[in-house]
């Protein structure tokens, strides 16, 4: 190190900066962290968009009806479900067929609160949310998301390779976990604060289904929550929604009259999952979560924005190549 008198200040400063950051190294997992951030940003973007669309539609339809109707509007009546029976959405069955998947069972008392619409959670995805009557608008008790195509690949990529899978009916696989905002699974015994309980269900049909339960509703159901999630998972018809239900299970939910409670009953919820077996290390459908193709991003059409700092607006294309 030169003294102040021996070296120009520029050299001394350069030397000091080099020395100051000599021990700083980028962590090896930086690429993975960047990709995780990107995926989380996409999901936040789409969820926010879906909520905005739902709010806009919810506001526009009554306004349109009020302007065009010449008769007195009759408030829509919610259908109460008895204990132990699946709820019927309003209108009956609406929202329970999505993305080629039929929801055969829902916890009692839930009704359709909103459909997020096509591709709200990635290309080829559909979602319906079900709420309790006393929940504020925008809140859900159970939300079902059906992923197909690239979205399914991404969804399955979140399931830890070393996690245990439980087999439900029809050789389907299920994985339960508490997912963080960044779609990371909290390890068993870890802090689940701020996470969402999710049962991921999939089989060979190509559909991957998230059954998310709101943390509040999960806590409310206490010990029965896992069983309810499993019952919803077992009650899913993943065969494209076209396979007729068994004769003893009654007509499809969407064909029932509003007051009927005769809907398919996939059996009582249970906390006892079938024997677990090792998940996925050999499952060829499971993409590497770090290299799986991302879901196409609507913001990709935006021009690159290098930042918002004032006075730095020029496009990067004008910068010459440089390697310090």
């Amino acid at each position, binding site marked *: 190190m030169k003294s102040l008198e021996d070296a120009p200040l*520029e050299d001394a400063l350069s030397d000091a900066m080099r020395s*100051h950051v000599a021990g700083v190294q980028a962590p090896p997992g930086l690429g993975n962290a960047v990709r995780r951030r990107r995926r989380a940003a996409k999901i936040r973007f789409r969820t926010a968009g879906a909520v905005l669309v739902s709010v806009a539609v919810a506001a526009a339809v009554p306004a349109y009806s009020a302007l065009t109707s010449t008769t007195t509007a009759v408030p829509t009546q919610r259908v109460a479900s008895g204990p132990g029976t699946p709820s019927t959405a309003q209108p009956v069955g609406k929202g329970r067929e999505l993305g080629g998947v039929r929801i055969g069972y829902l916890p009692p008392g839930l009704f359709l609160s909103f459909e997020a619409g096509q591709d709200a959670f990635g290309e080829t995805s559909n979602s319906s949310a079900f709420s309790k009557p006393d929940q504020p608008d925008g809140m859900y008790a159970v939300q079902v998301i059906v992923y197909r195509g690239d979205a399914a690949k991404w969804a399955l990529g979140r399931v830890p390779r070393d996690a245990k899978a439980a087999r439900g009916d029809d050789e389907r696989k299920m994985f339960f976990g508490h997912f963080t905002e960044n779609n990371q699974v909290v390890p068993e015994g870890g802090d689940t604060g701020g996470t969402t309980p999710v049962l991921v269900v999939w089989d060979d049909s190509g559909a991957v289904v998230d059954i998310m339960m709101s943390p509040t509703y999960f806590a409310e159901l206490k010990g029965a929550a896992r069983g309810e999630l499993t019952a919803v998972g077992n009650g899913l018809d993943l065969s494209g929604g076209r396979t007729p239900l068994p004769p003893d299970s009654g007509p499809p939910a969407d064909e029932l009259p509003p007051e009927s409670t005769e809907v398919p009953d996939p059996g009582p919820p249970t906390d006892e999952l079938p024997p677990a077996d090792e998940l996925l290390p050999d499952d060829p459908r499971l993409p590497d979560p770090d290299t799986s193709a991302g879901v196409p991003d609507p913001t990709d059409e935006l021009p*690159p924005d290098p930042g918002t700092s004032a006075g730095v607006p020029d496009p990067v294309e004008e910068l010459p190549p440089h390697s310090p």
Partner: protein
Amino acid sequence: MTEDDDAAFDDFLAARSTTLLRTAVLVCGASPHDAEDLVQHALEKVYRHWPRIRHNNPEAYARKVVVNAAISKARRRKILHEISFARPPETTVDDPDVDLRGSLISELRRLPARQRAVLVLRYWEDLSEAETAQLMGCSAGTVKSQAARGLARIRARLNPGPTGFPAPAEGAMK
């Protein structure tokens, strides 16, 4: 994003991420941990546009994103610092045993964010005045004056006596 794009992004990170992280540490004056968060955020932006920028000098784009983010963060940190702490007393290098490098870094941190960024880009990244000007979105003259003022301030604080730190010889500024 194709597999090829992803692989190229990994190569880019392997080659450049440490330098970007070090630049962020110097420009925002934060700890490596905080700077890592900043760099992750900036690289997420790079990753979003990667298929289009990967063939068009992604390094310059990434550096620009990181420097802009670091300047913004440094400004926020300065506000928080001024709210939370009293201004530290003016320090001089009276003790000959004081580590010169540490003093220089301390004085570098006390400079305004953009002035500090100019010094980092000029004397650590070793960019030319023109390259620094393009990255900062200002003229080469502004870069020159900002660098001179930054150095003068450091020099005055380190050695305020009549002898002072030796003034740079003519043409010493790169």
